[in-house]
């Protein structure tokens, strides 16, 4: 076994440290070491998006990176976005629009959508955007394209897009993290 790697990172505002098996993914670190099981393991291969978390403001699949690579990083998981008593705007909208059924892909959808809204505000284009300056008034197809890395087998897609659209329209200028 190689030398034990170490990492110090901030998870949902709390400093955390890791020193252990270099094979440990960020996903398993969150779930098994920190008990933050809101981040889900659906495929462990970057195919489903259930493990989406926000690292330094950008969404990633936590199953595809090793925790040892995250020294100095700032990680936000679904637990960091809100609590049952204080839901984030997206979390509230997912409940209102029934943007989930079984709930297993849901934390990944919400983390992904949270970061995606910031990407829209920052003017990032996507493959469906006309031009390179980013959409000023994103269509539903624009949202669908940007959320297509997050699978939902229950088929709540229409409701997820409705939830995201509501937040997009009510909080267009929400400060990004």
């Amino acid at each position, binding site marked *: 076994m190689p030398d034990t790697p170490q990492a110090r990172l901030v998870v949902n505002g709390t400093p955390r440290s890791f020193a252990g098996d270099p094979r440990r993914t960020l996903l398993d670190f969150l779930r098994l070491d920190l008990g933050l099981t809101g981040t889900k*393991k659906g495929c462990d291969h970057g195919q489903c998006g259930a493990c989406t978390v926000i690292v330094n403001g950008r969404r990633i699949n936590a199953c595809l990176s090793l925790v040892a690579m995250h020294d100095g990083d700032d990680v936000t998981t679904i637990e960091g976005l809100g609590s049952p008593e204080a839901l984030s705007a997206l979390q509230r909208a997912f409940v209102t629009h029934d943007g989930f059924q079984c709930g297993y892909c849901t934390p990944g959808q919400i983390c992904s959508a949270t970061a995606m809204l910031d990407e829209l505000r920052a003017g990032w284009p996507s493959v469906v955007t006309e031009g390179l300056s980013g959409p000023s008034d994103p269509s539903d197809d624009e949202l669908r394209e940007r959320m297509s890395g997050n699978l939902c087998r229950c088929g709540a897609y229409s409701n997820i897009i409705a939830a995201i659209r509501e937040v997009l329209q009510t909080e267009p200028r929400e400060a990004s993290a």
Partner: protein
Amino acid sequence: MSATYDAPDRRNLLDHMRQGVIGKPLDRPEGPLKVTGRAPYAAEYDLPRCAEGVLVGARVSNGRVTAIHRDEVSAMPGVLGVFADPAMLRRPAQGGAGKAPAQDVTQVDYKGQPVALVVAETFEQATAAAKALRIDYEDSSDSAHFDPDAAGVEPPKKPTDLGDLEAAMRDAPHHVDLIFRTEGHASAAMEPHAAIAAWDGGELTLHGSFQMVAYNVPELAASLGVDPARVRIVSPYVGGGFGSKLGISHDAVAAAVAARELGRPVRVVLTRQQVFESVIRRSETRQRLRLACDETGRLVGLGHEARVSNLPDEKFAEPVTQATKFLYAGDNRRLAVQVTRVARLTAGSVRAPGEAVGMQALEAAMDELAETAGIDPIALRKRNLPDKAPGEGIPFSSRTLVEALDRGAAAFGWDRRHARPCQTREGEWWIGMGVASAARVNMLAPAEARVRLHPDGRVEVESDQTDIGTGSYAILGQIAAEMLGSPIDRVTVALGDSRLPPGAGSGGSFGAASTGSAVLRACEAIRAELSSRLGVAAEELTLQDGLARGGNRSDTLVGLLGGDMLEETGRIEPGRTGKDYSQATYGAFFCEVAVNAFTAETRIRRMTGAFGFGRVLNAKTARSQCLGGMVWGIGSALTEALQFDLRDGHLVNHDLAGYHVPVHRDVPALDVILLEERDAVASPLQAKGVGELGICGAAGAVANAIYNACGVRPYRFPMTPDTLLDQMPDPF
């Protein structure tokens, strides 16, 4: 009151209640837990000293394990043990089995079948050792069949033969005789199958991901050779099931065996690849549809014969013709399902077994017959609704098919469709519209639920019923709130624990109507006691917002309870209503597609579904069930296909990168119309099931829209570009 549902309960109790919550589109009560990541799923319990287990799949397609080289991995870091116990499962349990499935993992029935479990201190250590574990096999793949087209078929079980179909086909002015193929499907629930087993003396607690807890307990107990009374299953949140979690699978027994041996809790989570390779598949099908009609479009002959596959000794055969039996008229009929035996993983229930693939072929054939006979496709369907169930002569409990076709057509704008194909082109895309009927059998299942009315007016509902995303938490609470006149926020619902009364479980769309009826009956018993205390007849009692009224009397609920807690257990079992009537849910799909003139790629542009399934218990969760079904229909239509290598039977696309479930971009805005109806034959709630109806025929509407767009008749599902391309019209 007898638990058996022998006579329709036409009192229509829920419509006479006053609380006003039944049917309302209320948010799911567990929603805040799910959207914040606080709802614990099977693998997410933190048990002290929990060891991690990883299963090892067979590398041969058929044969026997002759040696497991345990010694070579036992010294690897953290390894605690390698298990190949005779109790471990070779195959998962079929839905509703209630007994042990095929055990003994020394025999290999299909490639990827779990043959050993490696347990270590950490997940990484167990994974490394599982990969390093060397296993010797006696390979008898040469004697196994891998190609369903090449293996022999068994005679059909209980075929329907009425009249003379051959003569009807010969003599009728219009007929079609078509062969359809559908590929196998995976449930692919987002949560992989997982179990944490912990023994306390001789008592097992298993945190698992299950659909039918009351059946899973005896399956697990029998597999382990222990008394079911000493097995507790906890499954309050289930990350999707779609049939794949009806029965226990490899993870549960392996975790329990290892935990018993090691004297500490063991967690076993299937990898995504193992879920695909070893749990449950929907069989591929080959279907022959023969339809014959007279000059007016009246069906005189109807044939639907299917060939499906399964492993040797499995009784399950995808019931492809299930809805064909009752949906359309036609005196001369032949319906049959035949099974062929192949070395592929177990075939079993995947969302809407039977109708999910049978209806899409039937509805595509109906479209072709309509064209052949020169009749409007909606008119053809309406013209062929039988007065009584063909062959059985029993009445239909209720049927909203005509209303679904009419309301769906109006909402969709069906009148803008061109009857002839290739009439609309936008850039490089052909545009077309299609319609299909939806139908799915309806059934009750035995269920119990307990309701407690506390002295302060709080209501508790308890059952081992599961909520796999279906909305059980929401609708069971709404039924109790309506019946007991309680504000919804004073009702709590506890589910998914085998210590609670046995609910119906989540399968066959029967969970809501069955367990909901048990809740209704428990509440009815509580109402009887309350009306007696108030001194009025039960039917005079009105309960609303914690107040009881009746005759000229009134009291607060709390006052009436006088410090007592009232507790009742309600029960229901299927009875004569299930035999005396043909029960089904009905609907209609309307779809607009764009087919690329150069690549033959199909995109769904919009889709409308209108569905009738008795009383709507919660308009929000019911709509979501319909949406989900339609998304499955889109997958079945365009992308989903299990692909097996015909040389050795291995599943080529064993994960979500190769098996394509619909993603956001594949699903346009979907329109759902819920048709209000009351079906007292179906249940005392006047409700039927809704979890599967949204798939049943959906892909047929897509197929018909593809034809309408580009003039190519699809006969293979999924309708990928390669199945259409060589027949596409000149794009220029």
